[in-house]
């Protein structure tokens, strides 16, 4: 039997169909690993063994009957705690939703389970997905499995850590401004930003609605493609899910990879950038060139304004979305003498520092007299950023940048300076604003062994080609490392 850390979707399928292990035994193995590792990682906030074993038994019954297995049969998967799961605690990493158990499943959750996945539990995250280090969770930070004194990245830090530590074969995160790509890069695993509208968000508890995306992690690009194929598609319950033809990413991986034009934006490789990040991403670009790709210079001239535009738009939308936490319908209520006092106390004590900071900022930029100067201005700059990408993609099929300007930093190192934390999202927020697709793939390590991620962007709804390139890169890199 393969070591648990090495399980992938095909190896699970193979082991189950060859009857080397049952789905129930596999589920037990993953819960054992979670029991051993989670105390030091804090990656999981809640487990749902009853539901997982019931699903495992359904999969075992299908195997016994000789029925054809669905694509994710028996695959243990973890779910970020911002996605609703019926009857399972769903907190968004916040005190204000402590004890909340949704009466329904998110569409993404439902699709995973319908295609045979075994859902192990809910993973830790920055409160309401607001953060880049996972230190904003009300339930304590997640520790990076590669280096326990370092952050796993955020906001989907628990899902990234769970997959990197072998506590799940794949996981769902969400990405609003980099929240799967950056933790993927910090933990050394691939993480996909699907096109805006690609995966239904029904049951995703909203942070910033024009930016939020459901987004998968896995141990390799092939498994990311398998997850995307299952998750993608129009959903009548989400009016923002797109009618674009669904991807067929798994099939695309095995087609011969032809050289593509890879755009390198000079703005993303400034003088004085982290030397290890530059070296490893450059090495990644060279690897792509050896696969037949051609390097072309492109420009993203408004990159320098992306953080400002992003933090205005995201906080404005958040301040509106988070108005629903009022102590009336679910979660925490702190009593008050009047209705308004009850609202104020509930929200004042239920939300953590970063969430309150963003509500104050978002309310400010939307308030009378400031709307045009901040919010409308940011939306216009968003148009410029989207145009930058449209023009760059006229010259290049893909665009390559670092995922993060730095590798995983130490817990507590940046917690007191929100602006410096925001600035670290420089490479990821641009693609979020433009609605395009992208992936972070591991491209090397620092001398201390900290993973570095390379980000590849592609036009919206071209995941098939993006994943084909990322898969070819991953295979070539693995081959060059064993030689």
């Amino acid at each position: 039997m393969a070591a648990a850390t090495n399980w992938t979707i095909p190896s699970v399928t193979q082991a189950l169909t060859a009857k080397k292990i049952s789905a129930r035994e596999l589920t037990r193995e993953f819960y054992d690993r979670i029991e051993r590792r989670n105390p030091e990682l804090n990656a999981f906030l809640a487990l749902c063994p009853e539901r997982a074993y019931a699903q495992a038994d359904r999969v075992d019954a299908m195997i016994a009957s000789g029925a054809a297995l669905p694509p994710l049969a028996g695959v243990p998967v973890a779910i970020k705690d911002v996605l609703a799961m019926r009857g399972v605690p769903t907190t968004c990493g916040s005190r204000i939703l402590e004890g909340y158990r949704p009466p329904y499943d998110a569409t993404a959750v439902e699709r995973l389970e319908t295609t045979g996945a075994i859902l192990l539990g809910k993973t830790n995250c920055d409160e309401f997905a607001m953060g880049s280090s996972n230190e904003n969770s009300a339930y304590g930070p997640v520790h990076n499995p590669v280096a326990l004194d370092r952050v796993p990245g955020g906001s989907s830090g628990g899902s990234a850590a769970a997959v990197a530590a072998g506590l799940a074969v794949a996981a769902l995160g969400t990405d609003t401004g980099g929240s799967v790509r950056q933790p993927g890069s910090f933990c050394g695993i691939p993480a996909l930003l699907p096109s805006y509208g690609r995966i239904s968000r029904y049951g995703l508890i909203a942070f910033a609605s024009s930016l939020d995306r459901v987004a998968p992690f896995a141990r390799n690009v092939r498994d990311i493609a398998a997850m995307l194929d299952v998750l993608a598609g129009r959903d009548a319950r989400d009016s923002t899910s797109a009618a674009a033809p669904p991807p067929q990413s798994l099939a695309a991986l095995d087609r011969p990879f032809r050289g593509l034009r890879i755009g390198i934006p000079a703005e993303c490789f400034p003088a004085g950038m982290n030397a290890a990040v530059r070296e490893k991403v450059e090495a990644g670009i060279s690897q792509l060139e050896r696969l037949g790709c051609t390097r072309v210079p492109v420009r993203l001239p408004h990159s320098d304004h992306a953080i400002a535009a992003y933090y205005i738009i995201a906080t404005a939308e958040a301040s509106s979305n988070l108005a629903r936490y009022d102590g009336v319908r679910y979660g925490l209520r702190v009593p008050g003498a009047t209705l308004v006092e009850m609202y104020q106390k509930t929200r004042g004590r239920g939300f953590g520092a970063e969430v309150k900071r963003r509500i104050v900022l978002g309310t400010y930029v939307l308030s009378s007299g400031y709307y045009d100067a901040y919010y409308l201005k940011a939306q216009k700059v968003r148009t410029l950023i989207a145009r930058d990408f449209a023009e760059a993609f006229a010259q290049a099929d893909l665009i390559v940048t670092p995922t993060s300007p730095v590798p995983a930093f130490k817990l507590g190192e940046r917690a007191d300076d929100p602006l410096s934390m925001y600035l670290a999202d420089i490479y990821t927020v641009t693609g979020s604003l433009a609605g395009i697709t992208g992936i972070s793939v591991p491209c090397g390590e620092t001398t201390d062994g900290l993973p570095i991620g390379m980000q590849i962007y592609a036009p919206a709804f071209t995941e098939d080609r993006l994943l084909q390139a990322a898969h070819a890169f991953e295979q070539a890199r693995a081959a060059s490392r064993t030689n």
Partner: protein
Amino acid sequence: MKISRDDVLKVAALAYLELTDAEVETYRRQLDSILTYVDKLNELDTSQIEPMAQTLDAAAGQGTPLRDDVVIPCDIKDQALAAAPDPAPPYFRVPKVIDR
């Protein structure tokens, strides 16, 4: 200084957020530095630029068609009320508002 203590208090009132005195000062200081930073957007002339509220392009086949307007049973009243901190079926109970 771009943002005053009174600005923070006014915004907190709009957002129904109770803040401690220490929080008001911390947020004032941090928002001041964030708002100073975002002023860099004014370097760009956007007078001829349309604002972008969302990114899907219907012309590129990425539209979001409306579903048919049909009634679908959705009887989750009891489950919804069960999640409330102070339910009084079939209502949610809140502090008295009449005398406010």
